[in-house]
């Protein structure tokens, strides 16, 4: 007979235990370790170092499926995310009628290994939306509280962009942006012609070297594969690696956190977790616990951490944990630019993302929806991958090929000519906007389902509201105008109407989950104070998207990083003052 299951307590007592090594957790580990604080960093996934593990510069034929998506890598066989829409052994459930799509990466660095690097500061209005339009709530902090941290991370992590002086899209400390590509020049001309601004994008990619540890970008457009020379921001390469080098961080990989442990005073004492390799139970103790497992996973942890002092989950007398769950809005359209058929070939890769974008430009007083969205663009001569050439029968009969009208479909040398002629003329655009955080959108603990580790899973209950649907309608109308003004032919995304919510993506699909552990001054309506500190457990913090009151028309990662730095400095200060 072997040993029966026991709980093994790690002997080392840490100053801080952090759960999650993505943007928030990585920044916290970095700041705290550099201040001499002893950290235990728990990560549910395996180790990942872009320098070793990236598929960068692999050719399409080096994947047997030519880069197609799998359940292990939904964004493609070369993409840098381990897992995504599903994880074997780790289900989640939906209330009837809910369509929440949940992306979970399991790896050191989390989603920051494969993300789009879109690094946009929130603007002053984004913290005070209720005061402006009466919807949702105001943050307990404002732009002035976070600006110093945006400045610091711009310099520490690197971001390119241009100074524009926009009132609600604050300029950063920017590296030079790359020149627009050909389709982006078409877009710029067409969009500005109808009053839609197009400016350089703001991506955390190093067009110039900023330190010895990271290289400069070499324009292979594969940021999504993670960069072997660390030229783009991933928490794994830019934060965790230097944090480990201080000697103050013990990184425990393949550690699935189960719950936050508390004492009879209701303070956090550490975290219990299961080691996914030996399937044994462990506990690690710390003076402070920081949750950064993603908005929903951190909420799940808090809700699963029940005790006499915290019968409703840790620091949850307000009952808000899991609620106000929201994501970015998303709708898209695309087609071809016939002027670009038969185009001259050259290396058009550039950086791993758009070189230009459109920040929100309108006045809501003249619109039938609140808040706004930015527009992302793509197109051009991309690297062939699975799906290349699909559906040519929908194009090669519609457009003359080298001056010849052909029958749609076909085969043979004539068909090869068609693929060559049509290559590189595609263009697409997508809106990414602000949804309203509603109490009626939430995740909660499913009362009867556990995952393979016996941890109760989340059940989601979300739906898009009329606010978001009307915003998507506006996106489609705007895209149509830009496409027509460019002389482009729309080939997808135009079948938008009320019956399909104007192509609005399901909540969760944009992968910017936020709001489930929101901060606020009112303890009855929030779980955290303005330092991301749990109201009812002063040594517990949350530094991922959970703390967000609203999420703006800007992707949230840069704000997660800034807030995590701010909270970490607060923790250092409080430890010195011995108030925690």
């Amino acid at each position: 007979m072997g040993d029966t299951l026991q709980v093994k307590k790690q002997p080392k007592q840490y100053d801080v235990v952090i759960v999650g090594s993505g943007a928030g957790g990585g920044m916290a580990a970095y700041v705290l370790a550099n201040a001499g604080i002893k950290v235990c960093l728990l990560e549910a996934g395996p180790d990942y170092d872009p320098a070793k593990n990236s598929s960068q510069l692999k050719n399409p034929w080096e994947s047997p499926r030519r880069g197609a998506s799998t359940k292990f890598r939904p964004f493609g066989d070369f993409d840098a995310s381990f897992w995504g829409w599903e994880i074997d052994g780790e289900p989640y459930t939906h209330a009837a009628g809910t369509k929440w799509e949940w992306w979970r990466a399991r790896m050191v660095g989390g989603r920051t290994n494969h993300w789009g690097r879109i690094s946009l500061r929130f603007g002053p209005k984004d913290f005070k939306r209720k005061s402006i339009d009466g919807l949702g709530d105001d943050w307990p902090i404002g732009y002035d509280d976070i600006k110093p941290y945006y400045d610091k991370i711009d310099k520490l992590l690197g971001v390119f962009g241009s100074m524009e002086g926009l009132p609600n899209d604050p300029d950063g400390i920017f590296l030079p942006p790359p020149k627009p590509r050909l389709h982006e020049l078409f877009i710029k001309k067409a969009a500005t012609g109808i009053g839609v601004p197009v400016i350089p994008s703001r991506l955390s990619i190093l067009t110039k070297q900023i330190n010895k540890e990271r290289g400069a970008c070499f324009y292979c457009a594969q940021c999504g594969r993670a960069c072997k020379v660390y030229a783009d921001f991933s928490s794994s390469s830019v934060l965790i690696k230097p944090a480990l080098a201080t000697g103050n961080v013990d990184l425990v990989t393949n550690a699935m956190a189960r719950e936050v442990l508390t004492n009879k005073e209701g303070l956090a004492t550490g975290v219990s977790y299961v080691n996914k390799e030996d399937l044994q139970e462990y506990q690690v103790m710390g003076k402070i616990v920081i949750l950064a497992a993603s908005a929903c996973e951190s909420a799940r942890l808090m809700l699963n951490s029940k005790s006499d002092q915290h019968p409703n989950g840790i620091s949850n007398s307000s009952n808000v944990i899991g609620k106000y769950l929201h994501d970015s809005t998303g709708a898209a359209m695309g087609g071809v630019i016939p002027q670009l058929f038969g185009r001259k070939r050259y290396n058009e890769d550039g950086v791993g993302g758009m070189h230009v974008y459109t920040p929100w430009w309108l006045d809501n007083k003249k619109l039938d929806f609140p808040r706004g969205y930015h527009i992302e663009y793509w197109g051009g001569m991309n690297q062939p991958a699975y799906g290349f050439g699909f559906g040519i029968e929908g194009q090669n009969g519609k457009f003359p090929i080298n001056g010849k009208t052909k029958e749609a479909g076909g085969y043979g040398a004539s068909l090869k000519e068609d693929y060559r002629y049509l290559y590189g003329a595609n263009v697409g655009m997508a809106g990414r906007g602000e949804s309203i955080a509603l109490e009626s959108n939430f995740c909660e603990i499913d009362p009867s389902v556990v995952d393979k580790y016996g941890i109760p899973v989340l059940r989601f209950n979300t739906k898009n509201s009329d606010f978001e649907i009307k915003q998507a309608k506006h996106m489609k109308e705007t895209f149509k105008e830009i496409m027509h003004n460019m002389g482009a032919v729309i080939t997808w995304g135009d079948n938008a109407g009320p019956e399909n919510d104007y192509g609005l993506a399901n909540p969760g699909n944009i992968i910017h989950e936020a709001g489930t552990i929101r901060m606020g001054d009112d303890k009855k309506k929030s779980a955290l104070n303005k330092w991301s500190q749990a109201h009812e457990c002063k040594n517990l913090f949350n530094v991922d998207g959970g703390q967000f009151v609203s999420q703006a028309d800007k992707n949230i990662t840069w704000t997660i990083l800034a807030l995590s730095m701010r909270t970490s400095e607060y923790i250092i200060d409080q430890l010195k003052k011995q108030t925690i």
Partner: protein
Amino acid sequence: MDRRKSIKALLIGTAASAVMIEGCDTKDKKKPVATNTPSINEDDRMAEEIIANKNLREAVFFTPDEMATITVLADIIIPKDAVSGSASDAKVPDFIEFIVKDMPQHQIPMRGGLRWLDIQSLKRFEKAFTAITPAQQLQIVDDIAYPEKVKPGMKQGIAFFNLVRNLTATGFYTSEMGVTDIGYAGNKPNLWTGVPDEVLKQYNLSYSERELKESIRFEN
């Protein structure tokens, strides 16, 4: 030069001294598992992926007869021409063999379509598709290759041929031969200096003074 060594060499470069480095031969040093199976990249895979890929490689779906028909069709769709070789030359049938195991949703349409094709061939010529002459093969293909010219009873053939065309094209243009044919010039370290001047001229476009001034520039 080993790709990893060249990546290390790339960990340099400021705007003033950025170096133009040609992409080097990325030949995979790992030995392929089976000679007729596309090479599996494994140095960057999760443990679960390695197991899943191995199971896929070892599974068998298409029969030798089906593979023979697929090969004939693929070479009709993508034959050798002045620019590049045929689908067979680019090992597209091997890709199709793998992809239907990887994507089970293709299995019934492919298997059923292949049999539909053979039934057509038997009806017309009393022999299976691979046993008739090339001219006879094209007679059948001409009836299923043009979705906007559908004869009665041929709709299912059109759907099948669209699928085979898609898979053949994707397999071809993601092969080394096909990537060269289509003219994709990227996937190598380089410096993005913008749209080439002659291309800007061709479309009557230009960079603004501000773009020229503020965009990243590289001096050699």
